[in-house]
């Protein structure tokens, strides 16, 4: 069975026919064509599918698509604005925090949610915020560095406006 679902993703409103059993991740990837969010385990273990639902990080692979209906979904595709990378993305690029890049979209979403509520997180707080996102390439070191770096950039007055 399919249903018509109202999905608001990165500010775009969609009406989409979606199989009822679909997860939010399947709807994003296979119905809306937003393939930035990744499927690493399909059961909520790895965090590669992390998106923000009304600003809160959720695992899209175990979120039924109907739960997202009418709510604000933000994916990695919504982070950059008008072609300019978000300071988080810029820091990941500059500091080598993305290797294969497969966990990166989910990690960026967790990090973005963290910085929305905690503008100057400690290293321990960053580690805590990322503890649901598995990365197999980096040993996390450069990811932690990049998030701390982005927080500093965002706290610099002239950058805050551009990224908000």
């Amino acid at each position: 069975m399919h249903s018509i679902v109202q999905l608001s993703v990165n500010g775009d409103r969609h009406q989409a026919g979606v199989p009822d059993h679909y997860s939010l991740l399947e709807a994003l990837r296979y119905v809306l064509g937003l393939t930035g969010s990744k499927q690493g385990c399909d059961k909520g273990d790895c965090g590669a599918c992390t998106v923000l639902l009304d600003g809160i990080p959720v695992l899209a692979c175990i979120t039924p698509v109907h739960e997202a209906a009418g709510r604000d979904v933000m994916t990695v595709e919504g982070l950059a604005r008008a072609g300019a990378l978000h300071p988080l993305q810029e820091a990941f690029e500059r500091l080598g925090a993305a290797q294969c890049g497969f966990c990166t979209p989910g990690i960026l979403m967790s990090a973005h949610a963290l910085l929305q509520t905690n503008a100057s997180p400690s290293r321990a707080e960053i580690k805590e915020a990322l503890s649901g996102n598995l990365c197999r390439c980096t040993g996390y070191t450069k990811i932690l560095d990049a998030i701390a770096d982005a927080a500093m950039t965002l706290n610099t007055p002239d950058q805050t406006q551009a990224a908000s």
Partner: protein
Amino acid sequence: MKPGELRPRQRDVAIDPAAFVADGAFNVIGGRHAKVDSHARVSGAAVYTDDMTLPGMLHGKILRSPHAHARIVSIDTSEAEALAGVHAVVIGSDMPVTYCVIPWTRDEYPLCVDRVRYIGDGVAAVAAINEETANRALQLIRVEYEVLEAVLTAERALEPDSPQIHDAGKPGRNGNITKHVHLEFGDVDAALEASDVVIEGEYFFQGTTHTPIEPHCAIGWYDPSGKLTVWSATQVPHYLHRELARVLDIDVARIRVVQPAVGGAFGGKSEPFDLEFCVAALSRKCGRPVKILYTREEVFYAHRGRHPMEMKYRLGGSHDGRIRAVDGKLLLDGGAYASFGLVTAYYSGQLLTAPYTFETYRFDSSRVYTNKPACGPKRGHGSVQPRFAFEVQLDKFAERIGMDPIEIRRRNFIGERTRTINELRITSNGFLQCLDAVESASGWTSKHRRMPFGQGVGIAGSCYISGTNYPIYPNEMPQAAIAIQVERSGRVAVFTGASEIGQGSNSMVAYITAEELGVPLEYIRVHSTDTDMTPVDLGAYSSRETFMVGNACVQAARELSLRIRQAVADTWECTAAQVALAGGWAFDVRDTAKHMPIVEAFNIAEAKLGPLGSVGHYNTPKDVHGEYRGGTIGASPAYSFTAHVAQVSVDVDSGFVTVDNIWVAHDCGRALNPTLVEAQMEGSAYMGFGEALMEENIYKDADHGRAGLHNAPSLLDYRIPTSLDTPELKSLIVESIDPEGPHGAKEAGEGPLHPSIPAIANAIYDAIGIRMDRMPFSPPNVWRALQSTDARANWERRHGSARVDVAAD
């Protein structure tokens, strides 16, 4: 458009001729540049195989064996084929050709023909309009099995009455042995006899898997013209290309293999897998593109991860710390198929002979079959397990003779420009600098044997190959090649078969090309791993890409640079040697006032010579290996060296080990981009740490469920380190500038993993006086060890009662 209208951005930047002219100065090499494809990877734009959808694409699924060992009596697919929405079904007899990445040990069918050998072995595949229909179709396939005894341990496999998992082939051979290697260098028994001390130990490495976050995925399309295209998350497109042709009996020139972005591999995608043959066969049958994406559970069963090894070592040494004899006996539990196992059996012995001098050496290694998922190469193929055992042996030796464990490693240093006892040729060697770096950064002298009970530090060293001198299938052709094409806008396209799997091979060729041609990095486009347009490369394994593809790239770019400089020199009426290309400019090195934008130089050269392009290649030295059977295995054009110091805290009540810090020093030759080298060092140290403390493949036996069933094929239960578990990792790059590497570079992707595990084991000993000779060092294992010995007394004896800090209790 006139030459010069398209100018590089640097046009208005004042150039510093001295910087360009100075000997050995680099403009790109050695810089901390972003990776050329990182913009796509941080923005969600990078296209991985499962991100692709082709018009009319179907979804495939593979039916897998529920038995660890059984004969297939019959397969009935008629109901599945009749299901609405099913377009094709294939079974083993549709592709009855064995394959293996190693041509000498082809023992695997794309789908089983008459026998299944592990739970998860593929039996049939279907293509349907969607995943749900494909899954329903699998349930309609009737397979009748005759269940056979499952062989679950290497010991059982070697018993005379054990079932034979594979046919022995020749009479007198054991069908349960993939490979047995026995090599001896010098008179080991005499040296042991003459040694002052002999350290004996038995070690166990539990077997672990790669778990890239991206599951394997492939799309096959046999198009109406009769051409097959396979897109796959592979790290060896060339070997896949060859095996597809052979197994499916399709002219290799009619097959195209494309490797899209890959989400991690670590050796887990370095051979053909059943899904790649199945998407091709299904598509050939129904004429539509077919995609198969493994579930996470299937990734665990596809496996090819690190072999469990039982290892016995004897080390004979002298009172002054010299290693006189090393004698190893290793039993490798290989799982159901050969995979790279022939090489693993050799590597388990061959790669132990540096960075220390062995006066004599013997190893005896057997890789046997069991009815479990096949083991293969994981980052540090074959040599991580023996390295763990040996570096702990060395620690025991140092303690026995009362020598500092770093000092004993210095004392046995093999040196540079030398040969190992098994005749591996060592060129550059920065191992001593690695030891110095970790000793100093970790504060070793104030910590070792000086920290309170429950805390300690440990050291270990290692070496690894930068690619292998001999390709997997014998041939005289180059191991690596590059094609460069320059467009008159200044855009430089680099075509490479090197597999970018996140390590940065695309960036590596871009850095080298930009350096040699003097163009800004943003002018470089790298096109990789598409067999229709990129030159053959053997793939991302054995840490070969930087060394081999990098050298090919240097050659191609220099040849092109010379032609361009000659064209400019003709215009300026000077010699090509006087023209330099650097930083977006062509200029006269004697008079830098004489210069032009690089695009103008390209245009002058194109006007004189026609379109600009070049090819380059690299082949390995073929005369540097041992003259004995197996002497070519382990031979590499250069070796990297690593040292780690790990610092741990052990909770003696729970057995919980926390690794607080790992200091990693790695001799990578030259760091073409220090950020990427550090990234490999950190990722390696992390991965070794996870294996040391947390990870373990466990299969049930008949008493605990279904024999051969993976205990925990998920990323929740197979525990890999999170951000909270991972130690603080400190990378210390050592540059030995290899004489044969591209700009002196060697490898960084695998070597830095090796010392993690023994450094942690040795640190645990320093902390609590207990030797953890069996992995993993998980709370139950450490707790049991704490219960069975008087750890505190051992520790106090070792530290000396004067320094005991009772407050630590």
